[in-house]
């Protein structure tokens, strides 16, 4: 058992890919599986900043939203082909991350959380007001991906399973990227800063620049998640940008295990599946989610995956 987990840890990208490839067959319907993919990526992007750098941001929904809206607007208003639109979404989110990060990095600790929450709300209002582009409260509709061809084979994006694998393609690339970042010197500096910021600074690392860089990377990944979401739902809802959406990323990371590689994905899967299941039983899903979350914060702060790993004494994210 332990060696299996060590095997996974060493080849985490491959393991994730294989698991996700068969994932849609164990979920009750593909739309849920796709949602889990997208939010899993969202949580992973968020986790870069939270779990690995120790910065708790409550404004990350802004990047999910910017990614969604930029991609959506590119397709709906400018007829940009979908692949280019995804790129636009990512770049937009990264820019947003640069601005927001620059403002927020000046603060630390609790202030950082509150500031990111408030900055996220500003982005929310801006998109809300820009009704002619975003549709305001009604959201942006009409994000279509027409049938396209890959190597001469027609691909029907509306087919749920096909859609899943296309989205999976992007998610896998992003996961691979995250893994590379964490394994690089940058990854080591990130964790050093999380453990002891002053010591890292004393060692000569530019803490502020590192924080900003990771903030932007995190934003870009969340932006990709947002872009994919726009394509999946054919709409962009305005509350993608609200702080409660940011709160979801936090909950997923905690639930799954912050500071672990695959934890956020597990957190997203559990939370979304749970929500889906609970909603059919009772209207009071909000209380159930809240209670489950509190339970984890109190008794399993390492999250599901983190607890499993620590029980097996696996070193987290080993090379």
């Amino acid at each position, binding site marked *: 058992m332990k060696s*299996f987990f060590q095997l996974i840890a060493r080849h985490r990208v491959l393991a994730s890919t294989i*698991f996700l490839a*068969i994932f849609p*067959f*164990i979920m*009750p*319907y*593909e*739309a*849920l599986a796709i*949602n889990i993919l997208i939010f899993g990526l969202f949580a992973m992007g968020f986790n870069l900043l939270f779990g690995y750098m120790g910065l708790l941001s409550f404004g990350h929904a802004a990047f999910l939203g910017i990614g969604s809206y930029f991609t959506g607007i590119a397709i709906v208003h400018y007829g940009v082909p979908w692949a280019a639109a995804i790129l636009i979404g990512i770049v937009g989110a990264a820019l947003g991350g640069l601005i927001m990060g620059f403002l927020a990095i000046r603060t630390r600790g609790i202030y950082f959380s509150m500031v990111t929450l408030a900055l996220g709300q500003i982005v929310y209002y801006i998109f*809300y*007001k820009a*009704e002619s582009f975003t*549709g*305001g*409260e*009604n*959201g942006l*509709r*009409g994000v*279509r991906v027409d049938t396209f061809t890959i190597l001469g084979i027609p691909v029907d994006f*509306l087919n*749920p399973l096909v859609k899943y694998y296309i989205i999976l393609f992007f998610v896998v690339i992003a996961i691979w990227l995250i893994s590379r970042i964490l394994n690089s010197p940058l990854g080591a500096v990130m964790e050093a800063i999380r453990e002891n910021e002053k010591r890292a600074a004393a060692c000569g690392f530019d803490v502020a620049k590192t924080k900003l860089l990771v903030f932007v990377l995190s934003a870009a990944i969340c932006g990709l998640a947002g872009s994919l*979401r726009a394509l999946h*739902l*054919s*709409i962009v*809802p*305005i*509350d*993608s940008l609200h702080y409660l959406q940011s709160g979801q990323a936090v909950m997923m990371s905690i639930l799954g295990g912050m500071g672990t590689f695959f934890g956020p994905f597990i957190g997203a*899967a*559990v939370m979304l*599946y*749970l929500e889906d*299941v*609970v*909603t*059919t*039983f009772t*209207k009071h*899903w*909000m209380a159930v989610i809240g209670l489950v979350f509190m339970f984890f914060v109190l008794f399993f702060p390492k999250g599901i995956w983190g607890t499993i790993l620590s029980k097996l004494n696996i070193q987290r994210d080993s090379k």
Partner: protein
Amino acid sequence: MTQKVTSQTRRKILIGGATVASTPLWLNVAKAQADTIKIGFPTPLTGPFSAEAQDQVKAAELAIKEFNDAGGFNGRKAELLVRDDKLNPGEAATRTLELIEKDKVNYVVGSLSAATQLSINAVCKERKVLFNSISQSDAINEAKDWSVYTFHEALNPTMTAGAVARYSIPRFGKKIVFLTADYAYGHEMVRAFERAGKEMGATTLADIRHPLGASDYSAFLPRIKALNPDILVLCNFGRDLVNSAKQCTDFGLKSSMKIVTPVLLYTSRLAGGPEAFEGIAGGTSYYWGLEDRIPTAKTFNDAFRKMYNGSVPSDYGALGYAGVRSVLASIKIAKSTETMKVVAAMENLKYDWYKGPEYYRKCDHQAVQTVIIVESKSKNMKDKYDVFNILTIEPTTEKNMRSCAELGHKA
């Protein structure tokens, strides 16, 4: 390796809970379609409009029951699949995808906000599923969002705000101030009211926008008072309406101006109470009090009372009933459940389910129907349901709607 993966997923399933028994674990095989006619019903069971939503469900279930009791269609019964969209367009889209992909519904009826209905419509449109929307929106009539699968049972702001304007301006004066919720629906209400008002020589003194969901309107009220209009139009909905009505009362605005609102919900009036809404007039699609003058209203009310312990249907509830009943009736006329045939039958449907004669306009599938102007009352209430006086009923006519050309539909 496969075995270990299974144990990992088994853990997840344990966490998931008992519904595992009812969800297919392995390959999603498209099963042969069961005999029941399935109507998906996404509606915000949780959130600020849950009261209206639950009323919609109750009334829709009544329509289903009547259909089934009458024998169904060729022995096939109808079934309502209710899902909570949490008043959230993203959730509504996901739920609609679930209804279409997993539950394989034949049709979708539902929604309770402009945003969610547009989102449900976007999903249905792409997958060629008939969608009958049962809440207000102007945007859904427009060519941009519309498709041949889109039907709109509810009123739209053009009709309701216009009717309220046509009622109030001749009686109370021409100087208008709007207190508007700052989102698309609010703006639609203003635009519609002004459009009708222009013909009567009304002038807009100010259009004051407040943030959607604002709880404190005090910041806007001194200015309204200073402007001294003849009519104050509250262009907001649900909770916003309750809040603003209450605070306008607190600030003593009623003594110097008439307050009206394009959409006066039964449930809002109950939530706000008699004092806050005293003297406020507004438009609605239905009020149970119609039963004194319209026979089908009495039939509908009585059936609802019988099924639900004496309570009466609300305005949005009645739309739930009509939305489902129109689809089911069209199936019988078309003698088929095939979508395009049902669409064709619905386009030609002439019906009177609960409020008098109605039909769907061909270019945008908008249900052409009456608008009822009601005024809240606080005295002489016979029982807890008797909250409105019916002032006037604006007849069924396409003249008061935006023209097909205006909406972007090709002739």
